[in-house]
């Protein structure tokens, strides 16, 4: 009996569905997430932990904003920009949102072409993604310098509650850092794709594991997560 349980790990259960399949997966002998590579599972778990980090920032922002007796600055006016004589509220933030969403779109297509083993298109789409990401960081730098110029500091600002500055710099700064590192990793993975590392299964520099096109999808998970976080920041910090 015991021997059979050990040898017969792959075909023990007929494929269950729903909650039963979850129970079967979590109680299985070797691998909880069947058919999911460790790289992808670990990226998801990392993203979960990152979710908690960003949640803590957003929750502390919420707490500061809800508990202050001083009026909160109106984001719609603070982030307004005058273009050609017309003052548009939040316009730069809106453009940044569209840029980041577009980069997510190109990334998703890069993942798709990667699984079709289309080296050229994958690399080009990843480079476009990196370019859009860099554009996003550039606009953020512009936003920061504009606000700093107007006198926003982590401890004070001209319009209201002092916590506005600290929340703004903390949340967008941490997100911008994520985007910057994402751009860096995009360039690294794009270079590997271009060179054909994943076609030749060339071994990784640090991991010395065989290169697989799944690396592009894992990179994509991170990039979409960065976009996902921006959705929440846009909603809670800029629009609320």
């Amino acid at each position, binding site marked *: 009996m015991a021997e059979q349980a050990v040898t017969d790990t792959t075909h023990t259960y007929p*494929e269950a*569905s*729903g909650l039963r*399949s*979850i129970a079967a*997966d979590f109680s299985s002998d070797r691998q*909880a*997430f*069947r*058919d*999911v590579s460790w790289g992808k*599972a670990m990226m*998801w*778990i990392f*993203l*979960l932990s990152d979710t*908690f980090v960003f*949640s803590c920032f957003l*929750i502390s922002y*919420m*707490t*500061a904003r*809800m*508990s*202050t*007796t001083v009026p909160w600055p109106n984001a*719609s006016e603070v982030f307004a920009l005058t273009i050609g004589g017309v003052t548009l*509220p*939040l316009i730069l933030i*809106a453009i940044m*949102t*569209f840029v980041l*969403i*577009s980069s*997510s*779109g190109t*990334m*998703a*297509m890069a*993942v*798709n072409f*990667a*699984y*079709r083993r289309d080296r050229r298109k994958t690399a080009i789409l990843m480079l476009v993604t990196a370019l859009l990401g860099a554009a996003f960081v550039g606009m953020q730098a512009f936003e920061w310098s504009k606000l700093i110029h107007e006198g926003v500091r982590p401890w004070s600002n001209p319009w209201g509650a002092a916590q506005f500055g600290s929340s703004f710099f903390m949340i967008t700064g941490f997100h911008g850092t994520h985007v910057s590192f994402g751009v860096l990793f995009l360039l690294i993975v794009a270079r590997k794709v271009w060179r054909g590392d994943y076609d030749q299964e060339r071994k990784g520099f640090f991991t010395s594991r065989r290169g697989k*096109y*799944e690396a592009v*999808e894992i990179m*994509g*998970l991170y990039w*979409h*997560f960065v*976009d*996902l976080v921006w*959705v*929440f920041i*846009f*909603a809670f910090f*800029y*629009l*609320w």
Partner: protein
Amino acid sequence: MAQASAHNQGQQHPIRLYLVVWIWLFVLSACSYFVDYFQFEGLPRYSLILVFMMLKAGLIIAVFMHMAWERLSLVYAILVPISAVLVFVAIMVLESDYTLLSRVSFFGPGT
């Protein structure tokens, strides 16, 4: 199983799907921008912001991150812990209400 075969060849979906989702994300972002542009106030503002936010987040997670085609055990392992965040939000809402109350009653004008 469709799930298992999807994994053996990697995720394969038509490009059209991504383009459609992309367009939807654009539309939803534009909608949430217009919530601010047209100066919605009060409950409509907050509910619209939340609805558009959840729709965008759902589309990104389900389609772009391929969560819709992942194994159910992975989906649950990632999504269920996030409910802890909601509990934390609830706790901090109560806490900040209390802080505000004490600030108003002890440091407010006229005391």
